[in-house]
């Protein structure tokens, strides 16, 4: 592996971490679309900054672009506040307007420079190692690495300092306000971090991938954990994993690095979405099927409990009485037998003591919705996991 390759992977990984942190909170605040808006609408900020400094890596560029990002958020909120349009419409109104201003400014004035629309959308990660940072003549590494590295240090420091405040205001803004932690300050703080990160990552991975790196790792992590800290760590892990494996996929296919990273992110989410242990599609479908069977089981047990007469409990008549198809009836009877809830004696089905207790308890739960007594049953039966 050449040092350029190493540097590209390092930049991509740092970008991934820097994006995953604000991304986690954006996903939890249901503000994923705002990162899309920010990533596009900071373009005029970058262009103006570039015209002033003639340097794509100038800090002024980052400041101006971040400012445009925050202005985007303010504009969206102001339009939304009029009550005439909903938030998604407001976002759809604001960012194309700002983005197109940036595009026109580039087309009018910057045709002959590195700043072009392709680079803006997809980034130029492969060229990042060529732009070196020289400190009194000594090469200390690619400029992008230093920029995103600095942003990451600040982001992590802010996360450590204000984790409690971020968590509280994301979960319960009302309580945060009443306790004196201004949710407005935290909101704009997060928006500023998201904007600055977007600008820092922009040059490396472009406007589209920035969104993918903010939202996809967090969305995947959300399906896998019920702990905010673990969610943050998982998002970071997914981001870095996609960054590095995406780089190698691009290397083998001789394709765009940004495109490959985004593809890996998409595939990663698909896998998590399908196979996540409790929230994944397959787990949910399995659980629903189990619940269906268990409701049937309960119906069946209740029928037995309510009927003492033998003709109602004869194996061959059960199907007609409960009006079920043969296969379903068999599944249910088997399940009841397996759990020792019924006995079949000369084709007459009877409840065992356990079956009788279970039925009473379950019905009691359904009627009273009282949770305490159901706790022991929860592990055995999906029905009560609600």
């Amino acid at each position: 592996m050449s040092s350029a390759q190493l540097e590209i992977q390092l930049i991509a990984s740092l970008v991934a971490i820097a994006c995953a942190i604000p991304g986690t909170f954006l996903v939890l605040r249901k503000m994923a679309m705002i990162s899309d808006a920010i990533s596009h609408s900071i373009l005029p900020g970058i262009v103006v900054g570039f015209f002033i400094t003639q340097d794509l890596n100038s800090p002024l560029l980052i400041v101006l672009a971040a400012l445009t990002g925050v202005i985007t958020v303010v504009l969206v909120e102001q339009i939304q506040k009029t009550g005439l349009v909903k938030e998604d419409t407001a976002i759809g109104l604001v960012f194309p307007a700002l983005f197109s201003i940036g595009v026109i400014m580039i087309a009018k004035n910057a045709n002959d420079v590195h700043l072009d629309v392709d680079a803006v959308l997809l980034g130029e990660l492969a060229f990042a190692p060529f732009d070196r940072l020289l400190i009194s003549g000594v090469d200390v590494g690619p400029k992008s690495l230093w920029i995103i590295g600095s942003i990451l240090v600040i982001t992590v420091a802010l996360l450590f300092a204000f984790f409690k405040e971020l968590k509280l205001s994301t979960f319960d803004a009302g309580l945060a306000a009443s306790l004196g932690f201004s949710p407005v300050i935290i909101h704009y703080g997060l928006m500023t971090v998201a904007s600055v990160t977007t600008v820092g990552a922009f040059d490396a991975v472009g406007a589209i991938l920035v969104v993918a790196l903010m939202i996809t790792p967090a969305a995947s992590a959300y399906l896998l954990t019920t702990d905010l800290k673990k969610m943050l760590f998982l998002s970071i892990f997914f981001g870095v994993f996609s960054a590095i494996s995406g780089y190698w996929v691009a290397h083998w296919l001789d394709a765009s690095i940004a495109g490959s990273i985004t593809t890996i992110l998409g595939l990663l989410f698909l896998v998590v979405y399908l196979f996540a242990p409790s929230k994944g599609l397959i787990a949910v479908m399995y659980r629903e099927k189990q619940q269906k069977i268990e409701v049937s089981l309960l119906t069946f047990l209740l029928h037995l409990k309510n009927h003492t007469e033998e003709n109602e409990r004869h194996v061959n008549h059960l199907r007609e009485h409960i009006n079920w198809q043969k296969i379903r009836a068999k599944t249910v009877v088997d399940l009841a037998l397996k759990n020792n809830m019924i006995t079949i004696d000369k084709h007459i089905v009877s409840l065992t003591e356990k079956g009788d207790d279970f039925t009473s308890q379950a019905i009691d739960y359904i009627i009273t919705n009282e949770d305490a007594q159901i706790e022991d049953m929860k592990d055995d039966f999906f029905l009560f996991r609600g």
Partner: protein
Amino acid sequence: MSKKTAVQIDDLTVAYNYKPVLWDIDLEIPEGVLMAIVGPNGAGKSTLIKSVLGILKPIAGSVSIYGKSYEKQRSLVAYVPQKGSVDWDFPTTALDVVMMGTYGSLGWVKRPRQKEKKAALEALEQVGMLPFKNRQISQLSGGQQQRIFLARALVQDASIYFMDEPFQGVDATTEIAIINILKALRKANKTVIVVHHDLQTVPEYFDWVTFLNVKKIATGPVKDIFNDDNLTKTYGINYKVSIQK
């Protein structure tokens, strides 16, 4: 009665987009009462609480807690928001939510430590939710979630408690458990202010009541003012409740 005034509201007017939802409210809440705020939907009950707590900015009027502004008296006040105001799918546990009640006394940046955790566990115990401390909050029933919210307020060890519909969507057992805790708070001379919907239970649960419908209709002891006349004034229609007093 020569009780101290816990909460004093003067000429409070709150508007959303220039439409007043609370109009010129004067309200004096004495220390140590268990007070219901009743009124129809859109009467401004939640808005009143939120304005007192500085969550909403009134366009006129002032609020004082024991004679000083809310900002100076934050530590004396605890708040239980409506259960529906938060996302219960948020990745966190019951214990962690209760710990949030300690954040106010910690202030910015400082992290909760062993002392805060101990207080949170005690509050969970108080509402009978200790066995569920590590459960993810979406895995709790509606009643259990409400108890968690109550525990979060208890852990603040405040003098005044504001609660926004704490009985909404809870089962009968939880309702009794909650009201017993509220009565215990009153016994400890705490002031409890509850937005309440079930008029039938007002005389049984509360000793003080405020009728609200954009304007204040009446406020005072339940035994004196909880009558058909005030109910009719508040709810508009000719209100007849045959409530045992």
